[in-house]
């Protein structure tokens, strides 16, 4: 078997892997290798040809290809090595080995000082959310359709219904319309928009595409190609009101119903997974329960902004490099980071206390939308960080920065405090 040695091996060449590679190299790792299954770097951003990326990081509005282009330029400059068309089959965390396929080299074993997991996420499907009906052609996840339309020069349909008002769903509504399809409607189970208002305005309202909030698809019709879907309003428990069901004719249904971190390799390696995020448990260095393995980006938790993925991944790359060079800070103590009022999850979930004073960013999502709140982190009764927010929303990631020197006790809790 072909063998390669490197300091930091990064699985995945999307935005997370690219950012981790640059920071690992900048931190001083000598040989950094990205293992990518596609025939090019950039990951999902290759098909995200629309603008809206980089507003917080670069202070300008970039398209997906422009955004990752800045990183690929940088990794070329820094001398990061890349193995394309290589699917990782196994991560052996004890031996710090990654086994992958490659048509040119055969089965390849990469031996590394540390490993960064940056595999991203996959889409939830029609079957995951159990939409009854037939199983005809013409049902696509929004991302699969996006790949076909934007990368493979293939048009998937002419008359489209979209389930889910997440950003990908709305962006595909605009994309299909610009390519000549008729988007009949976007159907959203919740009573509020899942994605950004901006996308509602520019992707739906601009083209007169109706948005049906608090509605769902109750069943799918058509034996060969889809011929229509039944759409019904839902009650306060999100149960469809079947008496109000109506047939909507279409030849294509796109599902934009959520993303799930892709952690097959992680689970197989026995790394501890958080049941809420579906991603590995990590500390502030983005180190998993297996010390030589780090993780970042959507494999850890699904982000809404690539800008956040980049900064989190730079953290992972930096500390993976330090681990490989044996320079990780000496941990004196480990404390838990837990969820408080109206917080669904936090990331990282563990914090290591060392002599090195750090600013630690804690990312979290809320359970319910709320207005006029204070985001707070506290140890026992002592609030160690807080900030005011006009609005919080489950669809938008929040974050709070804490000063490691202020941490006391065994636990820090993040909560959303409602103001009176």
């Amino acid at each position, binding site marked *: *078997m*072909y063998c390669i040695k490197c300091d930091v091996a990064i699985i995945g060449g999307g935005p997370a892997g690219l950012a981790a590679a640059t920071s690992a190299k900048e931190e001083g790792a000598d040989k950094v290798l990205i293992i990518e*299954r596609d025939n090019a770097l950039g990951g999902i951003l290759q098909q995200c040809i629309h603008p809206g990326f980089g507003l917080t990081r670069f202070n300008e509005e970039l398209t997906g290809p422009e955004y990752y282009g800045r990183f690929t330029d940088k990794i070329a400059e820094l001398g990061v090595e890349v193995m394309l*068309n290589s*699917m990782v*089959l196994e991560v052996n965390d004890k031996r710090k080995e990654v*086994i992958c*396929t*490659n*048509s*040119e080299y*055969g*089965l390849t074993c990469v031996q590394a000082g540390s490993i960064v997991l940056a595999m991203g996420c*996959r*889409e939830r*499907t*029609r*079957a*995951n959310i*159990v939409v*009854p*009906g*037939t*199983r*005809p*052609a*013409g049902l*696509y*996840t929004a*991302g*699969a359709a996006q*790949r*076909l*339309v934007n990368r*493979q*020069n*293939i*048009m*998937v*349909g*002419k008359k489209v219904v979209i389930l889910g008002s997440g950003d990908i769903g709305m962006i595909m509504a605009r994309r299909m319309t610009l*390519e000549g399809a008729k988007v009949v409607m976007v159907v959203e189970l919740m009573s509020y928009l899942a994605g950004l208002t901006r996308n509602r305005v520019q992707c739906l309202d601009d083209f007169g595409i109706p948005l049906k909030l608090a509605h769902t698809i*109750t*069943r*799918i*019709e058509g*034996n*060969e*190609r889809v011929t229509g879907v039944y759409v019904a309003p839902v009650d306060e428990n999100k149960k469809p009101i079947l008496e109000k069901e109506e047939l909507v004719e279409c*030849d294509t249904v796109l599902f934009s119903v959520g993303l799930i971190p892709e952690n*097959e390799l992680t*689970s197989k390696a026995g790394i501890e997974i958080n049941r809420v995020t579906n991603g590995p448990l990590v500390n502030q260095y983005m180190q998993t329960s297996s010390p030589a393995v780090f993780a970042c980006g959507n494999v850890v938790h699904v982000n809404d902004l690539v800008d956040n993925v980049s900064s989190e991944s730079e953290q992972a790359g930096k500390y993976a490099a330090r681990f490989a060079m044996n320079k990780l800070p000496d941990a004196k103590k480990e404390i838990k980071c837990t969820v408080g009022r109206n917080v669904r999850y936090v990331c990282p979930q563990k914090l290591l206390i060392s002599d090195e004073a750090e600013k630690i960013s804690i990312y979290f999502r809320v359970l319910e939308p709320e207005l006029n709140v204070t985001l707070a982190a506290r140890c026992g009764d002592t609030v160690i960080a807080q900030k005011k927010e006009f609005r919080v929303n489950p669809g938008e990631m929040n974050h709070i920065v804490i000063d490691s020197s202020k941490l006391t006790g065994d636990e820090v809790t993040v909560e959303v405090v409602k103001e009176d």
Partner: protein
Amino acid sequence: MLKTDVVVIGAGAVGCAIAHELSKYKIDVLVVDMNEDVGGDASKSNSAIIHTGYDAAPGTLESQLVVAANSMYDELTQSLDVPFKRIGAILPAITQEQFDRLPEIKEKAFRNHVYDVEFKTGAELLEMEPNLNPEVKGGLYIPRESIIDPFIFVQALAENANTNGVEFMLGARVKDIKTENGKIKSVVTSCGEIETRYVINSAGLYCDEIAEMVGKAEYKVVARKGQFYILDKNTSCKVEHIVLPIPTKVTKGKLMCPTMHGNMLVGPTAEDQESKVDKSTTSAGLDSIAADVKNLVPNVNIRDTITQYSGLRPNRNPEGLHFDMYEDLEGYINLSGVRSTGLTLSVAMGKYVVQQMMYHGEELELKDNFISERKGIIKFSEQTPEVQDKLIKENPLYGNVICRCETITEAEIVDAINRPLGAKSVDAVKRRVRAGMGRCQGGFCGPKVIEILARETGRSTTDINKNNPGSYMVTGTTR
């Protein structure tokens, strides 16, 4: 006009098993099916179990054939390279009423000559299957109940029959059967007329329509819908045996069992319906599965579902498995009432049909060059690293993983397309190599499979179907 000795109508498990058995003899056989792929209808959407026949109606043809068939699978699946496992079934009694019925069920098994059924105590069953309802009072263990890959099974029968000279005419709808002087003369299909001496009607759901063409419409097919859930391989609550409920009058009830590939299968419902094409799932049906199976396995996690499907069992009115030959219609063999045990009994039916043909005067002589071995598609993911390395070096397409969920390489997909009776559609690829059968359901590999199919078969991507004509995947190019 095409000319053959035997036309088998229907390329499901039964049709292919008959063709496979006949391929051992010196006789020309042609299998006709309206679908573009072998695998039939009911044969590809069932519970994938090879039964023992313990619960059949004793003394019936169904009982004889199922009981006889079970023991044939070890050797057959070996020589045809079909995934098959004897995992055994357990029949737990949860209520006292169910517990009291166990002796009667065991007695029936004996009358079906299934003698290896054993009583187990509740504690023993929980030992065997820790996720069972802890209130289990006891039950039966049926060791030879087994699981199979139903797609590969039918493909293997068809491929091997094809290797041994059986012709297949797929995508051809039978329009008429011509007879002359009380004898079969020819079969008229949408792809032309075939002169033949025999017609074997193994058309499953449509066998009554075929029978009508020769004036033997003595029964009607009643489609009985069965809905299923498939759960993720990583689901939190799994079982290792086929866990069966105590049967009721209507159905064997809803079961939970592993598939050959480590998923969990949960179902089916049993709903009689008029339509022979409506294979939709319904929320009422799916909800009933979850509710019922929770009685057996309380922690079953339906939320881990990766797909749901339904199949139609071709039930018969009046009921029961029937094999019919007619004195006034020489050369016509009619099979009807092949229902949930059809997959199991298919191989015995093949032998039974041949025997009946001989009994009725057909002189069948064995071929001396019959090839009994069939090699399946090499599964890259199941090889040792050394073999994987070798495979990639011999054929670089093994280095290109197309389906990430099931780790299926481009080489496997190309083999599925190019082998005898190869895949022409996206679903046909899926049924041969499992690309798209994993947790992302083709979200990742679907676009690539369309391109590989187009390339290998020299068609445009717009001509690639999901399965049958009309199920086009894409509508054109953007530029």
